[in-house]
């Protein structure tokens, strides 16, 4: 523990900017993935424990597209759509069969997919890790210097893009017909089916959207992270923590929680360098014990 260092950091503008921008980037990337998890939980009431593997799949698909086309944006798009499609197949073919089963069956079904996907990517892409996608040419420029801190241009892009996605999600949920139906389904699924809305279609759609977000997160993260089998697990745990802290099913909550975790990691790395992971779990336990519905969740969950 090094609280003095943390204090020093909070007192200098360069350190503050350094850690804040870093925390924002980490947090927003986390939000992309976690928002998918929380969206699916909100409507379908299941935790897609295989969500991290979807993230991994996104990274691999992006890498493959990149290898074929050498176009970063196309790679990200292909990963998002590809994983979205995979999500639909997963939901229709497997998950929808266990909605009425108990939690154990749902967890194990997802876990089976974690195992299968981890091996499948090895069979297809080999057991060696793959290099990152690299950043698009437009961002190949020296980093900016802001108040004594260094800020990579590409991080600004990630921050901007993720924020855009967050805003788009928010607009979708509040301004569109399907968004309203989604929120209604979170409150009362029976009512939605009573209204004559095809819930199977709705569920598949939500799963597609949630998976798409995981794929998108995976592809974007792969721009600067190496890709390997098993990379999804730490991600699903983090996403779950974000989901719990924010309130299961709450997109806004996930946004706040992801930023909170991002900042915890960023500043925690200075104050508690060896316990940043533990810190996340402690935070989650605190929330579960003190406010089980999460920061922005509805009560009674």
């Amino acid at each position, binding site marked *: 523990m090094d609280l003095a260092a943390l204090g020093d950091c909070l007192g200098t503008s360069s350190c503050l900017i350094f850690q804040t921008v870093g925390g924002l980037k980490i947090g927003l990337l986390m939000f992309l993935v976690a928002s998918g998890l929380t969206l699916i939980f909100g409507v379908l009431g299941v*935790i897609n424990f295989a969500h991290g593997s979807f993230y991994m799949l996104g990274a691999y698909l992006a890498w493959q597209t990149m290898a074929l086309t050498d176009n970063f944006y196309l790679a990200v798009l292909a990963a998002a759509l590809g994983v979205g499609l995979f999500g639909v197949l997963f939901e229709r073919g*497997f998950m929808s*069969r*266990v909605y009425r*089963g*108990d*939690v*154990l*069956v749902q*967890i*194990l*079904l997802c*876990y*089976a*997919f*974690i*195992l*299968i996907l*981890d*091996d*499948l990517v*090895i*069979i297809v892409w080999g057991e060696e890790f793959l290099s990152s996608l690299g950043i698009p040419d437009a961002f190949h420029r020296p980093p900016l210097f802001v108040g004594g801190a260094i800020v990579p241009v590409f991080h600004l892009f990630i921050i901007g893009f993720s924020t855009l996605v967050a805003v788009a999600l928010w607009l979708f949920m509040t301004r569109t017909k399907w968004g309203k139906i989604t929120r209604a389904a979170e409150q009362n699924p029976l009512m939605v089916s009573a209204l004559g809305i095809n819930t199977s279609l709705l569920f598949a759609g939500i799963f597609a959207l949630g998976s798409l977000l995981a794929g998108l997160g995976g592809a974007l993260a792969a721009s600067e992270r190496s890709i390997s089998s098993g990379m999804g697990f730490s991600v699903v*745990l983090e996403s*779950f*923590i974000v989901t*719990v802290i924010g309130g*299961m099913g709450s997109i806004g909550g996930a946004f706040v929680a992801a930023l909170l975790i991002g900042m915890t990691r960023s500043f925690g790395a200075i104050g508690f360098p*060896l*316990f940043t*992971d*533990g810190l996340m*779990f*402690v935070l*989650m*336990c605190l929330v*579960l*014990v003190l406010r*089980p519905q999460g920061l922005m969740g509805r009560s009674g*969950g």
Partner: protein
Amino acid sequence: MKHETFLKDVAIGIGVVLLLALLFQVITDPGIHDLIIKTCIFGLFALSLNLLVGYLGLVAFGHATGFATGAYVFGLLMQTGTWTIPAAMGVAVVAAAALAAVIGAFCIRAREIYFAFLTLAFQMILYSAIISFVSLTGGDQGLMGGYPKPPFLGIDLSRPFDYYLFVCGVTVICVILLRQVIQSPFGYALRMIRDNHERSYFLGIQVKLYQWIAFVIASALAAVSGVMMSLFVTGAFPNFAYWSMSAEPLFMILLGGMQTFLGPLLGAFILQLLNDLVTEHTRYYGLVLGLVILFFILGLRRGLLDVVWDKVSDRRRKAGTVRPASPVTGDAEARERS
């Protein structure tokens, strides 16, 4: 009258231990011995978890907390070189129970998926602690360098037969105890809570207290299996506390069946066998295991022993000689319907 069934269980238990001892002499392949040992260790681990999952309806995803605590406390005590095996074992189990008492007090406040992941979160904190507390735990390398296994009561656990019989015996004792818990009035109260916790409150059953006690008992038994595992490897390793160690007994429960008392034990056997056979032939063990799980979830829809039991009771039901559900097993269909 009251003790008759317990004595019957004890008699069966003694019979099983004798049979296993005989098996050791008849089948001399140590690979089979190891298979039985690991089935016992993991079987007890899974059975203890099933007290929560099957009999109480609490899906705990952090059951390895007890397992790892048992293994580490035992291993650390043995490494001092001054402890006897039974004493160290006792302390390890009590330590795990005490830890479970604290963790359980928090976890039982949460329901369903929250409970599952809260137990997982506590386990991951333990894992982080084991990894970071290098001076005590050896960090990621685990408790290395082995420890002496001083003989007690004429039992020398460094001899294969002694260790084999020790594991079999301890497992059988724990299974009898667990069966006693399940068949006791307390065990029935657990079933009532699983079926309908709301109604249980209004019958005067303090639901949370019962859940907490069951949580502590299950963790203590998990610690026993952890101790036996520590003896198997003469050490303890952080992956005992890793999340995947908690997933294993859930598989076993799924494979063997959660409605039948010994289902998880069968599940442990299947998983060990699967592990041994599959890893000999392919390194895509995960793929195979994943497909097996899918088959059980979507194809069979319950564990193997449950299937067998349902078949048997179906036939007897048709013959009109048996009531629809055994008090031991509950009834899977009825539970699905509810």
